[in-house]
């Protein structure tokens, strides 16, 4: 199951790369740099998705106290942080050519930056010392609270009337939405699908690794306990 997913992912990824770099049209103003758009937006969406998963599984954990829920939340947060980091690097690379600056303190960018720190903090709580039950419980509480920032990031450009960061989907206050060509849109949607799949594969892999670690730990303790007897 996992294996086949990986193969599907590899194939789809190459298709996506083809779509991005060859099939879709080159944007008139920004040129080739605009291609980063697909990764940028894709990563952002997956980061949101990942944090959503953290949120849901945190609630589930507090209700059911199953270790697997905690594990999923933790791994999802790590993947989310990774993709946020991608957004935070592709954004500036793009910004360098679009706005002629690496970074500006604009609402969308600032809130994304905060999002990054929020989930780093979440990971820090997970790395605290002590029993896993305690860490899982505290992390879950924090995972619930920190999700509040996700809608804020999404709405940032819509609330604050940003002049810099573009809006493509939905209604913008002043720009009209949908300033995107059909082929670009298709490519984008395809990329979104592929990156989401990537997320799923990573999540599975992460859970697998975590399980193995636990099993190894278990064996180690068992041997130790046998030795003591």
């Amino acid at each position: 199951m996992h294996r086949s997913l990986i193969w599907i992912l590899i194939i789809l990824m190459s298709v996506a790369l083809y779509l991005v770099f060859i099939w879709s049209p080159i944007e008139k103003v920004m040129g080739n740099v605009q291609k980063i758009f697909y990764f940028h937006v894709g990563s952002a969406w997956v980061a949101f998705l990942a944090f959503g998963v953290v949120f849901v599984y945190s609630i589930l954990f507090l209700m059911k106290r199953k270790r697997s829920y905690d594990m999923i939340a933790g791994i999802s947060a790590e993947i989310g942080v990774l993709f946020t980091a991608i957004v935070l690097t592709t954004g500036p690379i793009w910004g360098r050519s679009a706005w002629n600056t690496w970074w500006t303190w604009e609402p969308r960018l600032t809130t994304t930056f905060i999002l990054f720190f929020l989930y780093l903090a979440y990971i820090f709580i997970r790395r605290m010392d002590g029993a896993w039950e305690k860490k899982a419980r505290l992390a879950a509480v924090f995972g619930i609270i920190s999700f509040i920032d996700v809608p804020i990031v999404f709405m940032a450009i819509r609330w604050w009337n940003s002049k810099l960061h573009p809006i493509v989907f939905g209604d913008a206050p002043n720009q009209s939405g949908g300033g995107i060509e059909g082929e670009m849109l298709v490519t984008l949607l395809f990329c979104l699908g592929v990156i989401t799949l990537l997320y799923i594969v990573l999540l599975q892999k992460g859970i697998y690794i975590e399980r193995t670690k636990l099993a190894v730990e278990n064996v180690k303790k068992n041997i130790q306990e046998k030795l003591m007897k």
Partner: protein
Amino acid sequence: MRDLIKSALAITWKDLYAEWRTKQVFSTMLIFSGLVIVTFSFAFDPTNNTIRAVIPGMIWVITIFAGILGLNRSFISEQYNDSLHGLIVSPIDPSSIYFGKFLSNFIIVLFVQMITIPLLFILFDYKMNGNILLFLLVLFLGSAGFICVGTFLAALSANSRSSEMLLPIILFPVISPIVIAAVQSTRILLIDVEEIESLFSWISLMAGYDLLFFVFCFFLFEFIMEV
């Protein structure tokens, strides 16, 4: 509910009483605020004319940095001899610990602000001419939100051995909305009075944040105190 408030007040009373005798947290926060002001005045050249523009930021930077000292202490002081465990085994609602600690922290922070803010105005030679009641409201709402989340996260980080390091890094991102809102409304009140109409949206943002987080923290606190 009455029991909850009663035990919350017992906790607030214990903390404020200890504080009253030593005045340690209060004076430390005060001195620390003073030092931050001085440090900033080196770092940001206060002879500069644009200095008035940084006053709103200063008010909140001071509140937060000094506040963190107090928040940390509020739960670190429960760690010696594991006295937090003493609270956990006692027959009180966990939320009353939250409520009690929130109150004592909030009171201390308000007292500190009562001194530092006039001091800041004097040192930076600023004459207040905005609406003072609105200004107090903004201070109240901003500090309430900050302490509300801060108390909660201080309790969370108190579970860690190195809580005094953990608290700032989990606190800052969560309070960023209220800090932004507080700085913006203070700026509008103190400097850009012409933008007054957008003040109310900031204030309602703060009120919403306070309410939301207070309810959240109040009910989630039980999970933090769980063992």
